[in-house]
């Protein structure tokens, strides 16, 4: 009996000591190359999610996906169709037309300096850049797709498997990784090369013209009071305001749609003024075709309602003279950055 037990023990030990089964060939691990954005010192620190650091491979994948029509239901429309580089990544049409020929009710927001935004869309319904990228794909008025189907379509393409493997150390393609890659690309879309940026460099030898300086001064005065909402180096406070476009808000209630707070009725996100020259039409519903119309509105057209922003304390407007409007317009045009419009890093990679 004891002998038998001994033999059994020896067999067990031998079993335990035998070479382990050869492991399944593991996916070859690829280390993505970290990227640090080289930003001018006046720009605030960009807060990048810890689970989506910038890498060369992630940015390259995001760029390809940004121009990928397979993200739409019928394979005809990409992000870039409504966010065109020569329009500072917005749509020159008042309302973008989706794949089914339907139009939305808001003007597409420009994809510019979005890396600093924690609330996106005119009503702030997206919490961060990754979250923002999830919406248009499934919106029936836009790309009208289904994320599961989009992922399956991408999986069917070997080159995407390779790109995802390099970006995320796995060839597994998911919705989460798709929007993360797009977000990485969008965080690189920074505009910082306007005349105003050059004027800000002390000793840089670039100065405003007299008219631009006059506009700059009015912009930053209590009377003009543009600077409170279009504040800082990003020319937006990234907050939500009712700027007096309408007396009533029976149609689009803006931020209220997200918060359900009556105090938020008629509030919309402050857009950046960077590249304002190229982002017409203006306002959330694209009602103004030109900057002149915008300035006319702020001069004479501000309407009072219960949620009118306290910073819009000037009933009817600020009564700018035609010359003052020209001056403010001249200053606004110093925010144009054509290098952003022509940056080859943002071109369609294919």
């Amino acid at each position, binding site marked *: 009996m004891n002998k038998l037990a001994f033999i059994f023990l020896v067999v067990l030990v031998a079993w335990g000591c035998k070479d382990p089964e050869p492991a399944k060939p593991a996916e070859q691990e690829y280390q993505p190359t970290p990227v640090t954005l080289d930003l001018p010192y006046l720009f605030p620190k960009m807060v990048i999610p810890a689970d989506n650091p910038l890498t060369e491979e992630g940015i390259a994948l995001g760029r390809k996906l940004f121009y990928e029509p397979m993200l739409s239901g019928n394979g005809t429309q990409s992000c870039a169709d409504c966010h065109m580089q020569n329009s500072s990544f917005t749509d020159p049409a008042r309302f973008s037309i989706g794949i089914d020929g339907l139009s939305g009710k808001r003007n597409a927001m420009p994809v510019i300096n979005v890396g600093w935004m924690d609330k996106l869309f005119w009503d702030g319904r997206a919490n961060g850049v990754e979250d923002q990228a999830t919406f248009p794909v499934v919106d029936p008025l836009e790309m009208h797709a289904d994320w599961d189907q989009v992922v399956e379509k991408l999986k069917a393409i070997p080159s995407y498997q390779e790109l995802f493997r390099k970006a995320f150390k796995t060839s597994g393609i998911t919705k989460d990784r798709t929007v993360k890659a797009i977000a990485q690309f969008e965080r690189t879309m920074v505009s910082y090369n306007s005349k105003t940026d050059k004027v800000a460099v002390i000793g840089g030898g670039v100065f405003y013209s007299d008219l631009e300086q006059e506009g*700059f001064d009015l912009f930053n*005065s209590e009377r003009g009071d543009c600077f409170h909402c279009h504040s800082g180096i990003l020319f937006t406070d990234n907050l939500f305001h009712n700027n007096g476009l309408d007396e009533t808000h029976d149609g689009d209630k803006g931020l209220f749609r997200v918060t359900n707070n009556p105090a938020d009725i008629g509030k919309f996100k402050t857009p950046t003024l960077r590249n304002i020259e190229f982002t017409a039409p203006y306002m959330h519903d694209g009602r103004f075709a030109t900057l002149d119309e915008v300035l006319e509105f702020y001069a004479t057209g501000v309407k009072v309602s219960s949620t009118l922003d306290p910073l819009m*304390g*000037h009933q009817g407007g600020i009564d700018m003279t035609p010359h003052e409007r020209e001056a403010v317009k001249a200053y606004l045009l110093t925010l144009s950055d054509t290098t952003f419009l022509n940056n080859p890093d943002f071109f369609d990679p294919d």
Partner: protein
Amino acid sequence: MLKFPLKSGLLFLFVALLWQGCGDKDPKPADVQIDFKTYVKSDEAVQNELIYHTAVGHYYSLLNLRYYLTHISLVKDDGTVVELKKAHLRDIHVPATKTIEAADVAAGHYTAMTFTFGIKKAENIVTFLDNTLANQNMYWPEQLGPGKFHYMKLEGQYYCGNDTCTVNNYAFHLGPTFGADYSFDVSQPIDLTIDGEKKFLEIRMDIDQWFHDPNDYDFDGWGPGIMNKPAAQEIARANGHNVFSAVVD
């Protein structure tokens, strides 16, 4: 034979422990949490309600409030100053700004809490604060004088309380108008002993105090914006003397 030494040992251990327990105990540092609360008179402020009343007869509401307190400190009874935070931006719409916590604050008896409302002139430069979006939103334009940041943005609506007027907006923005220093120091008595146990304090801003004592503030008279009005800034500074209080929970 072993009995006696064992007894002696136990007795020695007991005495030693007793000695340790009865000896002088060094006071220990502790964490301190400060909550920033907004009041109107004796009650915590509610937002978006035209229910508050100024001495000149206006009803007003609170919509937005952002302000800096700098050099938030505790003062020991021997005069030692312990700074808890260099600068804090409180925004009533951002819950994360409601509380700050200082770790391992030195033990002792503290008799005052001190801070500066706003930012002193010498420090009101771009490098004083972290370059964050929230701080950029508090920028003070050079056209209104040197000094990089507002001290406070208090905004809301007001009206006269009857049908003879319409509701208007006010933007009570304080800062370094045309280079003057309208910040002011606050010192509030407290009775706080720190000895190992986490302590909780509150800094309360009573909005109502900005609008009276010694100067009755008239929204109509000063208009919607006061960043370019030194006299209004001076009134605010004078009224600020009893805007803040400190409470030990």
